[in-house]
């Protein structure tokens, strides 16, 4: 059964708040359609400003779509969703402990016992005492705490925005293998710029660049789709990607200096909360 079904989803910044932007620049996503089921990892690829982070925020309920529908067949509302944002939003001055954070996983319904929290951190292989403050955790350990929270919440949908950012190769592999475990009970959607990792660990792909989107099994991906998604950024990706021979792409002349609102120097136009 589908865990999440997205149909004709569009999102634009409100005209009254962004008067200085042209209509085409305010529209971040245009009629995106895809489905993800429990047991699958969907990897979202695309250039900066293509709408990846905005899409995750829409799925998490942090933004409201301009049009289109998002159906969560397994959950009534947003409960059962865990969202791990791109930016580390921890309030580092607040001395909350791992236990206190995990204890609140099922609020507003009920609290979680200490034994269940211990089981959860063991499940995500977090080797830290449960009474340690969250502020002392590294970025990777913080992500594991959030996955422990997903485990305690019995989350049906896990949304991760660039989870491998800041992790070394081994850390990336371990995290993505862990996600492989979690997908047995949930659908996982992740945004990542590391195409090699996405191709290795994700079952399905969504290539996204505002109005353009392509969604299918990873085996169907080819260089034309990536070129169509990334345009001029594709060659830069190949240069920076480890083993720059992904899909045996040949260097091409860049003709897309101002494609659809994303600029060549990599400035991110992804959405901010307007809720």
């Amino acid at each position: 059964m589908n865990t999440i079904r997205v149909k004709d989803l569009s999102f634009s910044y409100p005209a009254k708040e962004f008067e200085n932007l042209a209509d085409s620049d305010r529209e971040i996503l245009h009629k995106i359609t895809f489905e993800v089921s429990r047991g699958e990892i969907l990897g979202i690829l695309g250039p900066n400003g293509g709408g990846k982070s905005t899409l995750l925020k829409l799925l998490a309920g942090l933004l409201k779509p301009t049009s289109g529908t998002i159906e969560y067949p397994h959950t009534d509302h947003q409960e059962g969703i865990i969202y791990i944002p791109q930016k580390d939003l921890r309030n580092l001055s607040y001395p909350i402990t791992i236990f206190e954070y995990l204890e609140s996983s099922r609020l507003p319904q009920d609290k979680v016992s200490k034994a269940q929290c211990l089981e959860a951190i063991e499940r995500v292989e977090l080797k830290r005492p449960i009474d340690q403050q969250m502020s002392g955790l590294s970025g990777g350990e913080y992500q594991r705490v959030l996955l422990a929270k997903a485990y305690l919440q019995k989350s049906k949908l896990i949304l991760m925005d660039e989870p491998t950012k800041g992790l070394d190769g081994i850390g990336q592999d371990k995290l993505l293998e862990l996600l492989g475990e979690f997908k047995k009970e949930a659908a996982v959607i992740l945004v990542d710029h590391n195409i090699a990792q996405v191709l290795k660990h994700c079952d399905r792909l969504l290539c996204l660049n505002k109005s353009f989107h392509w969604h299918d099994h990873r085996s169907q991906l080819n260089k034309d789709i990536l070129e169509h998604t990334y345009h001029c950024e594709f060659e830069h990706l190949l240069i920076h990607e480890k083993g720059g021979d992904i899909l045996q792409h040949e260097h091409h002349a860049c003709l897309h200096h101002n494609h659809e609102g994303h600029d060549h120097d990599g400035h991110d136009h992804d959405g901010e909360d307007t809720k």
Partner: protein
Amino acid sequence: MNWLTDFITFPFLQKALFGAIALALTCGLLSPMVVAKRFAFMGSSIAHGALLGVSISLALVDFIVPKGNPSTSLLIFAITTLVTMLAATPLALTTFRQKLPSDALIGLFFTATMGLGLLIHQALGPGKGDLMSYLFGNILMLSTLDLSILALLSVSIFAIVWKKKSSWILFLYDEEAAFIQGLPTKRYHVLFFLILTLVIVSGLKISGVILINSFLLIPGIFSLKYAPSAKKTFSYSITFALITTLIGVVLANGLGLGMGPTLAVTQVAIFLAIYALYWVKAKIA
């Protein structure tokens, strides 16, 4: 004058002591929340904005009840609370996950309400009450009614916060996660503003508009720095607020100083002393 027996001999000092303790308890509870949520400037702004409510209530009170009526104090409190809450609610709504920086909105609120309050007092209120006593506080003038209001507020606010302690902690730490989880974060945000307004208005007579900020900030700064967990920030902050308040009240009486300023300076001095002790301890270790 005896530093300690005065509190047994003089009823007005007993009232001052009980009032200060009630405010210390309530502010001690809220202070870690104010600091964790980065609402330090917000508390100060609402405190100054409360002058609008005080000015309006001072201007109106003589028309509603005869001079010297015992319910005057209650009426001033009620009108001030109502006006300040009405003014603070739009601020609460506009600062909830908005693009415009909160500090700009708070500054706007602060300037508008305080300026308007002073203008209203100049136009309608001269000779109708001492606005300065609300700026700097006059704890020695507390009535039994004032104490009853303070005690009732303390109990109510403790009940509201304590009952949902874990939810408040999640709200303070990660509002976005709390929202996704299904917590009504907007309701928490507005409720927190309203609680803050109530405490500030009820504390006006004790520490005044200017000094209530020390009650709302210093215990919280202390607790966030030294408490080992989020739950313990409450007990650390309340303990700090109570101890410093007791010392401040005794010092003010013994040295014949103003109660409000002495309380604020005592809190800062004790915080700095503890900070220095920890610093020395860390250097030795």
